[in-house]
């Protein structure tokens, strides 16, 4: 079937738009994944912090670093966990922002795909009708 140059052009446009859209969707899915992971970590860290606060002053606290347990000061561990929670919270907020951005982009991209789609369909239809 010898497709007319106009049809081929519209088709190429449509394909690029669709590819961009699917890429955006992939990004959003990845963002969701990462966010889920961070949320789980945040929950874990909060649990740890709670337990650390319940411990006595002179309790032995260790941190597993690689294959070895390293003894740590309780206050130091506490501070570390706090810092980690802070970091994770910031990261979550950032991810939220990017997600918003990506969704906006996705919506606009979807609209543009739709605008490309209708002339394409019209062209195809005209070819088949004739």
């Amino acid at each position, binding site marked *: 079937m010898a497709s007319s140059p106009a049809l081929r052009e519209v088709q190429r446009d449509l394909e690029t738009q669709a590819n961009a859209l699917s890429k955006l969707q992939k990004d959003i899915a990845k963002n969701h994944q990462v966010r889920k992971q961070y949320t789980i970590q945040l929950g874990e860290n909060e*649990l*740890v912090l709670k337990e*650390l606060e319940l*411990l006595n002053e002179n309790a032995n606290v260790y*941190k*597993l670093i690689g294959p070895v347990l390293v003894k740590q000061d309780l206050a130091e561990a506490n501070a570390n*966990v706090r810092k*980690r929670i802070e970091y994770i919270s910031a990261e979550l907020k950032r991810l939220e922002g990017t997600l918003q951005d990506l969704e906006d982009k996705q919506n606009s991209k979807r609209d543009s795909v739709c605008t490309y789609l209708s002339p394409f369909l019209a062209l195809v239809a005209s070819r088949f009708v004739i």
Partner: protein
Amino acid sequence: MGDSAKGTITSLDSLFSPEEAQKAVRRVEDAIADRRKELDRLRGFLSDNSALIHLVRKLPDELSHDIMVPFGSAAFFPGRLIHTNEFLVLLGEGYYADRTAKQTIEILQRRGKALEAQVDSLKVTMLDLELESKFFNSTAAEAAEGLVEIREEYMEDTPKDVFESGISVPNPPDSSKEDNSGKPDEDEVHARIMAKLDELEKEEIEDGSASGSDEDAEDSFQSNVDDGKNEASEIADLSMQFSVKAASFLSDKEQPHSIQKSPLPPEPKENLHQASVLKLEDSSENSARQTSKVGSSSRRAFTGSIVEHSHGLASIQSTKSTTPDQASGSNPSKPVSRFKMQKGIR
């Protein structure tokens, strides 16, 4: 009232195609399956946790335990567990703490509580999703059945029109009951009494003309006087009603409404209405007293009731004379018809 002009009918099929709804159902069910898996995982954690609590509680009962120590993944060798009251507990994120059995149990119990909270929230989410899937399912079924959606503009600014076209179905129940139970009964009783009275009067007049005695003549004269007084009071009532109507346009609307079993009971109107009734009763009481002076004791009750009810008659007459269009407008389209008509269309 053009019913078709006001409402729009869209078939549900055109809004949501059954296939799309089915797709949505499938998607939600996938989500539910995911949640169920997660729930099972959490339940596994919970049971592990309780088993561990049980074990930790029992371990310090003995000074040492004979156990099989795992050696790699392939072999075990016999060994002895000592220091049964010392635990190195993983708190999470690579942090460990030295704890006694009791403290460990406490930690594990807290962990169990957190897990339970997670399970609960997950259950709630699942319930939500299940409802959603049920909704999608019903939507799909309805769309497949060919259900239509009917939309109508709600005209708030023209209560009279709304009333006349008969959308008075969702009435405030209390006021409608009041009107239903009160007014029509009164009217009925009133009509009956009036008929009876007419009969009695005719009899009296006939008696009077036949016998021609002075007493009877006087009696009939008295009844005539009574009639005249009644009429006068009625006229007074009428004029009073008219004045009340002139005073407020609202009361003009209120009158027919109350008679036609329609509520719309805002306080100011009610007050006006009551005020007019009060006035009327005042006048009726006066006339009743006058008549009771002259009239015979057997007829007193009747005259009293006539005069009491004359305001009802007056209001009917007045409404019929003043607002004939409203009275006639309300009749042709009764409340039920509109809804039924649209049901009939589908």
